């Protein structure tokens, strides 16, 4: 655990872009690009959990993979503990991967079906020369114990395990190399509720005991509220709102976040809140809308022509100073929102009118989550 008030990020991402070319035509030249990630910036501090949330195709998984260079970024910088990750050659990158690991969503397809659990967990130890001979077995046993598996699970194959047990193996494999940072890509989405709770508790225990930092990628907002210190909401390849968890859930300001929260089914038949049902589907990231990418589906009462013109800056809003979740992570606790119709905004009236605005910005804050 880091000292309260730590202000140096472990991971710093600036203006990250991942564009996939669309090829076609006679010579297979690029005809355009799918802008999967289109200018994303965030920090992850030691020992904290930053959640990236959003719906399918918003770019959250691509962001997570680009950070680990499992996918090469098109532009932007990725700094891990002072190292420029994008500039690394293959050997230094391999070394860095000891520090940065990933746990995948699907425990059924992310484990090699022909390798025993023990061999899967030992692989990282052997590659990074972290243990030798009999030491490997001892370490594997320790790791299995830490994730709540029995020593005899080491000789089993993935098909002999339940979904929850497989996900524990995936976590043990990531932990084997003693990383400081783990990308958790939808780690509990494929699990049943009761098993999901077991795995979430395990991830939280490991974070507390080892001071791990997590980039927690998820679509389930109730899971995210439970695990995250800070939350970044993505839509069409961009971060549209970011805030400490409690602030985001108490006062979501980006109309997309409001709709997303209001859509979460609440297990309380008497819950009083406003349901915002968005029209239509998420537009294609190959042809994102102009201006604010959310404007065609936006429910903000002040939405007007300017929203289709002005690219909204991610700027501080909300009732600052914001209460922290009590985790003492200290830094980057501001509430940033990309919406020119939620005051205050540095896109002033004159600029908005020049872009065709007919409505002045006005705070819109529907009750979307039960309190």
């Amino acid at each position: 655990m880091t000292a309260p008030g730590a202000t140096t990020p472990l991971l710093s991402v600036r203006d990250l872009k991942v564009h996939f070319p669309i090829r076609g035509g006679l010579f297979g030249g690029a005809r355009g690009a799918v802008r999967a990630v289109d200018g994303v910036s965030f920090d992850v501090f030691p020992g904290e959990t930053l959640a990236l949330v959003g719906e399918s195709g918003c770019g959250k998984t691509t962001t997570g993979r680009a950070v680990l260079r499992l996918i090469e970024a098109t532009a932007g910088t990725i700094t891990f503990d002072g190292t420029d990750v994008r500039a690394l050659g293959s050997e230094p990158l391999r070394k860095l991967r000891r520090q940065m690991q990933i746990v995948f969503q699907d425990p059924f397809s992310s484990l090699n079906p022909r390798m025993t659990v023990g061999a899967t967990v030992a692989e990282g130890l052997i590659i990074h020369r972290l243990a030798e001979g009999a030491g490997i077995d001892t370490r594997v046993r320790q790791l299995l114990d830490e994730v709540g598996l029995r020593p005899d699970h080491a000789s089993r194959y993935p098909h002999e395990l339940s979904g929850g047990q497989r996900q524990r193996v995936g976590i043990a494999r990531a932990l084997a190399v003693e990383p400081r940072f783990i990308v958790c890509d939808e780690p509990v989405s494929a699990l049943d509720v009761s098993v999901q709770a077991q795995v979430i508790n395990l991830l939280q225990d490991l974070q507390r005991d080892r001071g791990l930092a997590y980039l927690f990628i998820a679509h389930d907002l109730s899971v995210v509220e439970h695990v995250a210190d800070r939350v970044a909401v993505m839509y069409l390849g961009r971060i549209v709102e970011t805030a400490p968890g409690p602030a985001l859930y108490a006062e979501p300001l980006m109309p997309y976040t409001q709709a997303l929260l209001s859509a979460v089914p609440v297990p309380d038949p008497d819950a009083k809140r406003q349901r915002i049902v968005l029209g239509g589907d998420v537009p294609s990231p190959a042809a994102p809308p102009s201006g604010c990418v959310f404007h065609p589906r936006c429910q903000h009462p002040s939405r007007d022509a300017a929203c289709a013109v002005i690219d909204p800056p991610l700027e501080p809003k909300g009732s600052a100073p914001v209460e922290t979740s009590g985790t003492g992570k200290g830094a980057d606790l501001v509430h940033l929102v990309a919406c020119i119709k939620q005051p205050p905004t540095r896109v002033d009236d004159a600029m908005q009118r020049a872009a065709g605005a007919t409505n002045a910005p006005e705070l819109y804050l529907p009750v979307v989550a039960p309190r």
Partner: protein
Amino acid sequence: MADPLLVVRNLHTNFATDAGIARAVDGVSFTVARGETVGLVGESGCGKSVTALSLLRLIDGAGRIDPQSEIILDGTNLIALPEREMRNVRGNRIAMIWQEPLSALNPVMTVGDQIGEVARVHAGASRREARAKAVEMLRLVGIAAPEQRAGEYPHQLSGGMRQRVVIAMALVMSPSLLIADEPTTALDVTIQAQILELLRDVQQRMGMSVLLITHDLGVVAETASRVLVMYAGEVVEESPVREIFAAAHHPYTEGLLRAMPRVGATGGRLAVIPGSVPPPTEWPDGCRFRDRCPYAWERCEREHPPLYQIGAGHTSRCHLAVEPERRAHPHTPLAAASGAGAGR
């Protein structure tokens, strides 16, 4: 319930497997009233999907519905019906929608032809009538430019639109019962909200009954008026929806509710249900939940609990109904004490 649409009595569906007989559905009884939405809840492997398939008699291969079971739809026992007549029930009287819309649709047929085919097969509609029906149904499920969409193929549609098409297909013959098996599980949360609203809307307009199968208690809270909770092939609790969230009786239901992280609830550790569902070839004697239960005592090992009446329309398969004082003394469940990947 004076005149229920569907009465299921003592439904047993077994599968012959290498490991022995899997009693996937093991004595399930329930009713669905006209115009009502009933939620059927449980985790993977509890038997909820097999229950749904049994209602349509879509169990084949190694599976077998016990002929003593009764599935009475509008006074007719479907178990005894010849296959020819059963085919008439499917799609006409009972329709079903599945979790993954892409695999429920034919990739090489336009969606209009697929919807129209239902009208041609079940109502003997002409090609032109079928086409008109398809457009009408697409409009009903809220698809913009239905004339144009009818000529498109499934891959040209988004996930939410595909699920709308599947719903449109299910509704062509105005069925009296719609079985929806995890209809929104594969969809994003904002699209899920759209589809649930659509289901509520068409149900009200058509006066249909809906059996909604889901693992998500939040979805149930927002759509159903009654809930059935299944565990290990049995219904373990049945209750009006309000009551199950306010006062769940069965320890499994209680555990499920407490294990759910929810928006608006503050942090802390999530309660877990230790262990996992036993395989359907090895349902334990006595209470099937007892190894995972924090209240279990020796009676639970000895005596298979019946469905006890708890209140109006509320039953629970737990001996706590007759020995409620046991609830005051929870202990570590056996499954947690014995380790096995269940701890933490």
